[in-house]
């Protein structure tokens, strides 16, 4: 078994295991959403392993945005987040949600912009070089390859990290961290 095969099966085990834990065992909201996040991140890894790089980036961003949305919705509704129980009041956590949402939307937008700029109406099918799968060649045609043009993933993840840092700083300043 190759290294990538081993990583693939580890990711599959992580994805299915966390999904099962989330569905069967987890009873509290944060545990449920945490299991969901682990499952979705593992799925993003699986997409990357099978050369669906574009989708791996999109899945990563979507998981982060969705996980946070579910987490804070759950927090708002069950009231475990500080100040989050009162939906009419100025919830402090909503700043973090808003910033993460903007970051994720920015990442999505970048992917979409890159896609719209790179894909001609009649996308030429590149002849895959020896040892390169057609899927990987297709990803390269879109300008997304593992190392050279992976800047879009770095930018998207960087945006999310930046918003997370800003959000953590905000919460720390307010004594919520």
């Amino acid at each position, binding site marked *: 078994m190759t290294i990538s*095969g081993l990583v*693939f099966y580890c990711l*599959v085990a992580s*994805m*299915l295991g966390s*999904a*099962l834990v*989330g*569905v*069967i065992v987890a009873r509290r*909201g944060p545990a*449920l*959403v945490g299991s*969901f996040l682990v*499952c*979705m991140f593992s*799925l993003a890894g*699986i*997409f990357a*392993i*099978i*050369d*669906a790089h*574009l*989708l791996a980036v*999109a*899945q990563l961003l*979507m998981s982060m*945005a*969705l996980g946070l*949305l*579910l987490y804070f*919705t*759950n927090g*708002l*509704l*069950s009231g475990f987040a500080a100040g989050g129980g009162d*939906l009419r009041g100025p919830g402090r956590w909503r700043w973090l949600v808003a910033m993460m949402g903007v970051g994720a939307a920015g990442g*999505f937008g970048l*992917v*979409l912009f890159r*896609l719209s700029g790179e*894909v001609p109406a009649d*996308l030429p*099918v*590149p002849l895959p070089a020896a040892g390169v*799968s*057609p*899927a*990987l*060649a*297709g*990803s390269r*045609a*879109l300008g997304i390859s593992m190392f050279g043009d992976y800047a879009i993933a770095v930018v998207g993840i960087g945006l999310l990290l930046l918003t997370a840092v800003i959000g953590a700083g905000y919460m720390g300043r307010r004594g919520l961290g």
Partner: protein
Amino acid sequence: MVGLQTLIAVSALLFCVGLLGVFIHRNVIALWIGVELMLSAGNLALIAFNRHWGSRTGAGHGADAQVLAFVILAVCVAQVVVGAALLISSSRNRDSLDIEGANLLKW
């Protein structure tokens, strides 16, 4: 190289776990998560089939299904955002996340 059968089996398992979550939970957020798992399983199957048949026929380049799955992801996020707004509004009126009590639109 991961084969088609493996990917389809993983996708089917993930779909079953999502379906199980939808059946055994009554909490709306848990139901959501189950539906998201099923959607992701569908995406995985889509990518797997595209990867298999695209490479066999020579017509596919591996990006078609990715673009389609990307659109599915965007729609899924929009659906969750609208659903969250509905959920928050509904829970303010009912004070509960139990799906059994949501009978506002019932005749």
